[in-house]
């Protein structure tokens, strides 16, 4: 376990430092947003894959994190409290939704609809705030136009020292690595193991004396905080937030990243997210064929041919051809 983690950290850092040497500046710019989205994919991969909560509207936490960052950064002219807000606001909302739903025994696809609906409520509300009168402090909400010129991230409590786009690349990459390693550690902690037990069988976990509702709530809040962080990074990267972060299609995109990469793994959502985003970006550039057609075909083929996702399929292949080595569960 420790050796594997060390390998992951070392490999991640090597990749992070090595890529700028071989790729163009523009690619680096794209990689930054891929990494931010990968953090978001991880949050859903955690909540859905390791505690069985079908959070169809995970995007609500991403969007809320992005808006909280934008509004706080504009008001305080410093990204330090803004980042705190971007973690706190989604966590609070998750606490509310989770308390409301888990303690009401709402499960399964019915919970999915509650979470998706929350996202759509924010989508409708934010979309309708284009009037000048909707202002929080110094930040106009902008409605469907979104909030332009969101301040970049700066060194803690030093607003003059803002991060350039290359610094943003390293920051986002390192944060992705930290989140990944942190989640790996979380999942081997007693809390993480009980959550996996809850995913496997709620009844059994309950009969063993665990309060299932609290564990689900805890996992849901952690996922929300991570999604909020991703939203803040996204807002700082593009210096823009818009209501599309709350839309159905964005919510579904995250679901697809996780399923495509492999539900129940942590590396899967990252790979699925980066791979699919790279394909989308590339298709948008070459303009040979409508991106929707290609993506649609990929999703259908993925479900029919690789029902568990890429990573578990590759693991299966690996184990088949390397039968002597003992693989250990989640990647």
């Amino acid at each position, binding site marked *: 376990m420790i050796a594997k983690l060390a390998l992951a950290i070392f490999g991640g850092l090597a990749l992070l430092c090595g890529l700028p040497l071989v790729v163009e500046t523009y690619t680096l710019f794209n990689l930054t947003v891929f990494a931010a989205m990968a953090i978001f994919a991880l949050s859903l991969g955690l909540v859905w894959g390791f505690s069985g909560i*079908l959070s169809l509207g995970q995007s609500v936490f991403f969007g809320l994190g992005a808006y909280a960052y934008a509004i706080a950064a504009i008001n305080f002219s410093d990204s330090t409290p803004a980042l705190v807000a971007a973690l706190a606001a989604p966590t609070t909302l998750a606490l509310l939704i989770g308390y409301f739903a888990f303690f009401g025994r709402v499960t399964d696809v019915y919970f999915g*609809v509650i979470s*998706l609906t929350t996202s759509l409520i924010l989508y409708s509300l934010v979309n309708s705030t284009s009037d000048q009168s909707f202002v929080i402090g110094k930040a106009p909400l902008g409605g469907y136009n979104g909030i332009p010129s969101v301040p970049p991230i700066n060194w803690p409590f030093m607003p003059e020292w803002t991060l350039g786009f290359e610094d943003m690349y390293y920051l986002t990459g390192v944060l992705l690595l930290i989140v990944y390693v942190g989640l790996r550690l979380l999942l081997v902690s007693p809390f993480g193991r009980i959550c996996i037990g809850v995913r496997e069988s709620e009844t059994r976990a309950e009969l063993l004396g665990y309060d299932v509702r609290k564990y689900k709530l805890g996992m849901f809040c952690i996922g929300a905080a991570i999604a909020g962080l991703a939203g803040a990074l996204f807002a700082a990267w593009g210096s823009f937030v818009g209501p599309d972060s709350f839309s*159905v299609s964005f919510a579904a995109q995250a679901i697809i990243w996780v399923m495509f990469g492999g539900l129940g793994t942590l590396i899967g959502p990252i790979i699925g997210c980066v791979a699919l985003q790279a394909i989308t970006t590339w298709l948008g550039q070459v303009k040979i064929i409508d991106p929707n*057609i290609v*993506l*649609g075909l990929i*999703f259908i083929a*993925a479900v029919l041919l690789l029902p568990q996702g890429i990573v578990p399929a590759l693991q299966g292949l690996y184990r088949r051809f390397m039968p002597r080595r003992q693989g250990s569960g989640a990647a």
Partner: protein
Amino acid sequence: MELFLITAIHVLYAVASLFLMTAGLAVIFGMMGVINFAHGEFLMVGGFAFVLAVQAGINTWVAMFLVAPLVCVILGLVVERLIIRHLYGRTVDTILATWGLSLLLIGIASVTLGYDQRGVGQPFGSIAIGAYREGVYTFFVIGMAAVVVALLYGLLRWTSFGLVARGTMENAAMAWALGADVKRIYALTFALGAALSGLAGAIFAPIAGVMPVSGTIYIAKAFITVISGGPLPLSGAVLASGLLGTVSELTTIVSTPVVGHVALLAAAILLLRILPSGITGRFFRGGV
């Protein structure tokens, strides 16, 4: 009095259109446990089939009641055979596959038909109710919803297909063991849902127009209504659209459409909190 009448008509209309945009999805989810995320695109395809047929000179009613549902039935049968059939019992996988299908259909429609909105004029004029004018088409939509409810009820209750389909819904393995051709039932059910979506797409086309991304307007509302309705396809869809449609329309009248939409969503959340598996998860068990 006139105001009351107009309000009642608007509420009925909201309920009827919510039901029409939900019915196809409800049949497929309720009977097969498949969540068809390409449902909105089925409406879009039905809408395009209708508009193109009318523009080609086909009679409006033939286009609405025959061409649009038929095109969607064919599409539905192909989709069921190629994709859905392999995914029975895997609800979440069907979300991903049908989401892919939805992107594919949007892509194909944009490439072949362009990104523009197309439409046809509303077939009827309007009538006066006191000081207000109301389009006759509004009454037509309400009437159509009633007809669809009646036909679906009749089909599920009194035909041998309905009996076997309900049996399959209760317990597919048992129906299979008793000699019902479950695969065929599922294919027909999916086609039925597709036909309803095609009809709804055609009915909405004169009001909202149709373009490749039209489906995205419908899917969220339809999905939320179906889940709020719970496991029974017909009574669930009727009750949920009745409740949610009324809430959203009354709120819209006293405030704005945005608040009305939010009220619909909030009502759905509250409903699921009180009845964690939808309205018909608790009431009307054993119905249709």
